[in-house]
């Protein structure tokens, strides 16, 4: 055995929670699934009408698979914030890299209140993270593949990252071991949910390829707009409630924020989204002459995503400023990825979730008062791109060999609803001929 892979070391103790804080946090976590509902609606609305039922059923199946796999496997490797972890020693410092929690949620009743709430948070977080690549693979990703991708994320990648960040892993310990601020901070899930989801989306798009007819060998890309703006925009409103819940509960669980700080976190979340929407509205108004509903929804969501990283750590006005930057960057990035880089991402997940999350993480480092916090945030971002992205791509590449991601050409032509479910979402609608198949 390699000596530095030797021990399972205990993590430092975390403060307990009062009964009032426990009740509040539990209520917030019961509202957090509205974020999942919102993203599911947005994913469905941004896809095509002939794949709508498959998209929404896929969202539901992904939530189910994520919960089951995380309960059976993932939670063990995530470990507990006040529990043990697999540690090796390098340069005289402990590097806690993998959790060592109980199998099959054993002894849940005897866990501390903090650990029980953290577990619930993680269950919701893994479901939300797994929905992100499903939106990017819309109209060509098979239902089975979506479930298999979710299983891989929930069993391997998410637990690894969450242990590093939320469960006393090496990123969380950067402050203690290397005097880098308070270690890597991700109070609302900007890294563990959003950037992970966005990078998984990138890997899915790279492996599954673009929708047929999206990028002709000559000329510009073909516009394949989402089929239901009402779903998309209503999904944004639902998402606001869920994001408020995630950010405030995250501040309580991961930063141990006092009750007096929670209203500021909620305000920061709302202002980040509002600033982002206003900015995207203005940018698309200037760019296209009229505001674009779909891009405005993306901007709103990018503001929410950015707030995951920083709403609990910055003032509301700073959150507004960060939201404005996210709102300006998102529509431009969506355009660049599609037109210049040939990435077919129907839900804009890479621009919204990956980039918005990164912005929030960097902002947390810039505005945090502790010395070295920005470096800690940058090291965390380095781990996301240097370890998580290649790992996700490798796992998905192998998975694609056994469970092909992409539907066959006939399935793509007739639509995922008919091909995979045998019936459409809108049986009374007349389906128009697809111009891109000329």
């Amino acid at each position, binding site marked *: 055995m390699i000596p530095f892979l030797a021990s399972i070391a205990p993590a430092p103790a975390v403060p307990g929670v009062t009964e009032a804080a426990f009740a509040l946090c539990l209520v917030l976590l019961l509202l957090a699934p509205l974020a999942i509902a919102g993203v599911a609606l947005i994913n469905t609305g941004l896809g095509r009408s002939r794949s709508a039922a498959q998209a929404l059923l896929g969202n539901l199946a992904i939530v189910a698979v994520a919960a089951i796999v995380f309960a059976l496997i993932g939670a063990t490797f995530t470990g507990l914030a006040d529990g043990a972890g697999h540690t090796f020693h390098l340069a005289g410092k402990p590097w806690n890299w993998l959790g060592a929690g109980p199998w099959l949620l054993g002894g849940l009743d005897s866990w501390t209140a903090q650990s029980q709430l953290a577990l619930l948070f993680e269950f919701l977080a893994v479901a939300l993270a797994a929905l992100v690549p499903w939106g990017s693979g819309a109209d060509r990703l098979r239902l089975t593949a979506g479930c298999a991708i979710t299983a891989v994320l929930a069993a391997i990648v998410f637990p690894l990252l969450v242990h590093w960040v939320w469960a006393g892993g090496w990123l969380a310990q950067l402050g203690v071991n290397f005097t880098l601020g308070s270690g890597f901070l991700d109070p609302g899930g900007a890294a563990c949910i959003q950037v992970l989801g966005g990078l998984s989306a990138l890997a899915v798009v790279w492996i599954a390829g*673009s929708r047929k007819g999206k990028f002709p060998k000559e000329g510009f890309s073909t516009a394949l707009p989402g089929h239901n703006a009402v779903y998309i925009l209503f999904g944004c409103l639902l998402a606001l409630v869920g994001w408020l819940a995630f950010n405030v509960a995250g501040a309580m669980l991961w930063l141990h924020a006092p009750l007096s700080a929670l209203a500021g976190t909620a305000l920061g979340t709302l202002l980040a989204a509002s600033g982002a929407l206003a900015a995207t509205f203005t940018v698309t108004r200037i760019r296209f002459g009229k505001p674009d509903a779909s891009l405005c929804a993306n901007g709103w969501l990018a503001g929410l995503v950015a707030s995951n990283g920083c709403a609990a750590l910055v003032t509301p006005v700073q959150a507004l400023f960060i939201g404005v930057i996210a709102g300006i960057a998102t529509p431009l990035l969506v355009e660049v990825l599609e037109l210049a880089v*040939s990435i077919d991402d129907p839900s804009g997940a890479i621009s919204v979730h990956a980039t918005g999350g990164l912005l929030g993480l960097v902002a947390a480092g810039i505005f945090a008062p502790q010395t070295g916090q920005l470096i800690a945030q*940058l*090291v965390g971002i*380095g781990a996301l791109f240097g370890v998580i992205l290649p790992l996700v791509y490798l796992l998905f590449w192998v998975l694609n*060999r056994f469970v092909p991601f992409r539907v066959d050409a006939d399935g793509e032509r007739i639509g995922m609803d008919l091909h995979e479910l045998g019936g459409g979402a809108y049986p009374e609608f007349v389906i128009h001929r697809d111009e891109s198949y000329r």
Partner: protein
Amino acid sequence: MEPKGGSTFSQVFVTRPDKQGKGKTMKYAGLLVLPAGFFLSIAAVVLFAAPGPRAGFVLCGLAVEGLGLVVAVRGHMEARGEDN
């Protein structure tokens, strides 16, 4: 063409010639560069105690990762149209 149900070892692991190409190689090369940037950042944290050099080398690590990402994205662009 994707392997269908009941895949044999060769169907699963042998690289398909129609998916070969410069683009794929570039993408894999870019993805291999990403961990190199990460290890550079970690080395900076371990080796330097002063904030200045530490921040500089962490940024260098991120720059290497950025380079890897650009190469991977370029590889994806080279393969444009293969799936259509």
